[in-house]
């Protein structure tokens, strides 16, 4: 067969093979919504038994890996690295914890933790023994009883041999409720697992396991909290920059933008920051809970000193007609980093 014909055969062959296996619209929509639906409820990525297959297998599932034993710590480090920023691992600020607890045959090991003025990150592994388990709830409480809001959860399940740590999970919690600059935090982590348990019907019961409770102390990397409380009006819309929090994990800018006729639902502020060193960085993500809007800049800028600028370039929001509208500013805030 000549080269050109073979190339065309390959194209045809691949297209024939993939023609009928596109993901369903339901699957696609659900996943896009999950990916973009960043909010402050606990989210769970990567830990997803395949739906029909998983349901069918849950009663008698056997999980095996061909002779390979996975250590849990690399899993945890991988998740920290992939989802919570390499700079945290690279600077060695993440604390090894190595605390474990076993309840009804399930062992949970608190492995890695980190705290600063923006986030508390928790990484733990679990040995999932006889059934497929999923993490249900992870709650983090400070010594003075403040329950920190969960921001995001990620996890990986490895089908390792029975009784070893074959799953790893990381959660991030919003640390903005922590006041002052304590040198360390006293925290209580509560984890509750659900175990799939089949009865004679088609239903699967979720029998809770736990709670696994860990009390521990964690170094607190305060970073720099810069209170600003300055209001600037542009395009007829007043915007208040409340504060900028620079921590090793990220920099967070907190705005107040009151809803008005001009600015409507699902507002996303487009923000950039110029640091004293001249480095310019765009906000990587944002979170809005009217009227408060937070934008997040990935990277450790705690070493910066001097005058910086935060520019809210424009606001993107959903108009009452349903379309996306934009309102250009800019709203420019000067601030000083001590």
């Amino acid at each position, binding site marked *: *067969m000549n*080269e050109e014909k*073979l*190339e065309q*055969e*390959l*194209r*045809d*062959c*691949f*297209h*024939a*093979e*993939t023609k*009928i*296996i*596109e*993901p369903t619209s339901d*699957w*696609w929509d659900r*996943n*896009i919504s999950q*990916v*973009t*639906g*960043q909010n402050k409820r606990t989210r769970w*990525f*990567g830990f*997803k038994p*395949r739906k*029909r*297959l998983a349901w*069918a*297998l849950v009663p*008698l*599932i*056997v*999980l*095996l*890996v*061909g002779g*390979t034993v996975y250590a849990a710590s690399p899993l945890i480090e991988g998740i920290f690295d992939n*989802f919570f920023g390499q700079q945290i691992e690279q600077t060695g600020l993440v604390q090894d914890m190595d605390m474990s607890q076993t309840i009804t045959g399930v062992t949970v090991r608190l492995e890695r933790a980190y705290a600063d003025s923006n986030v508390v990150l928790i990484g733990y592994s679990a040995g999932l023994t006889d059934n497929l388990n999923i993490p249900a709830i992870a709650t983090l409480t400070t010594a003075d009883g403040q329950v920190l809001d969960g921001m995001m959860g990620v996890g*990986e399940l*490895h*089908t390792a041999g029975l009784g070893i740590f074959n799953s790893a999970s990381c959660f991030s919690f919003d640390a903005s409720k922590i006041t002052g600059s304590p040198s360390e935090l006293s925290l209580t982590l509560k984890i509750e697992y659900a175990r799939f348990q089949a009865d004679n019907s088609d239903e699967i019961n979720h029998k809770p396991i736990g709670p696994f409770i860990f009390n521990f102390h964690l170094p607190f990397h305060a970073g720099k909290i810069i209170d600003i409380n300055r209001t600037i009006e542009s395009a007829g819309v007043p915007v208040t920059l409340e504060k900028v929090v620079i921590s090793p994990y990220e920099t967070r800018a907190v705005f107040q933008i009151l809803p008005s006729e001009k600015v409507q639902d699902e507002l*996303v502020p*487009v923000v950039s920051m110029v640091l004293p060193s001249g480095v310019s960085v*765009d*906000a*990587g*993500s*944002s979170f809005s809970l009217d009227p408060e809007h937070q934008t997040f800049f990935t990277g450790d800028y705690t070493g910066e000193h001097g005058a910086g600028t935060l520019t809210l370039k*424009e606001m*993107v929001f959903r108009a009452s007609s349903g379309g*996306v509208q934009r309102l250009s500013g800019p709203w420019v805030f000067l601030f000083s980093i001590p």
Partner: protein
Amino acid sequence: MIEPEEAELIRRCQARDKDAFRLLVENYRKVMFGTAYLMTKDRGLAEDALQDALVQMWKHLPSLRQGVSLKAWLVRIVVNEVNRQRRKKRVLTVPLEYAPEIVDDCDDAVTMMIRNEDHQNLRQAMEQLPLEIKETVILRYFSDLTVPEIAAVMKKPEGTIKSRLNRALIRLNEILSNSETIENRR
């Protein structure tokens, strides 16, 4: 090159516009899922990889540089996630009584693949190629990436990619010729 409409969608994505993200990735749904499927030959693994890839795309779109081919960037993330899934080495063994259920659950693609005799020999020949060469062929002839784009995805020099493609075509021709000879002898 990124088309102006895509550039606008990317800009909106970078402003965390969810609708824009939906529109942007929708255009590449087929190539992303198809690439994952051809690499894994398993619908479930392909879905796992694509799901994680979508998370990475949403997370890293703000850092997408101008002038980068969007399709190559998206496929690169999919390939990375497929390789990450592979490292998990997920193997499920199940009681036999559940086997029919699983066969039902497996996609019709497997059945169709067997039925489609026109391409069966070529598919079998593909399976005899070393993994990295097979993946290079998938990226070239299914994902329709250029040699420089494949080099970027696979983190190899362009010369290596050209050589892999050349070797793949020669080897496939050899395998197909041999199978034809065997068929003729019968």
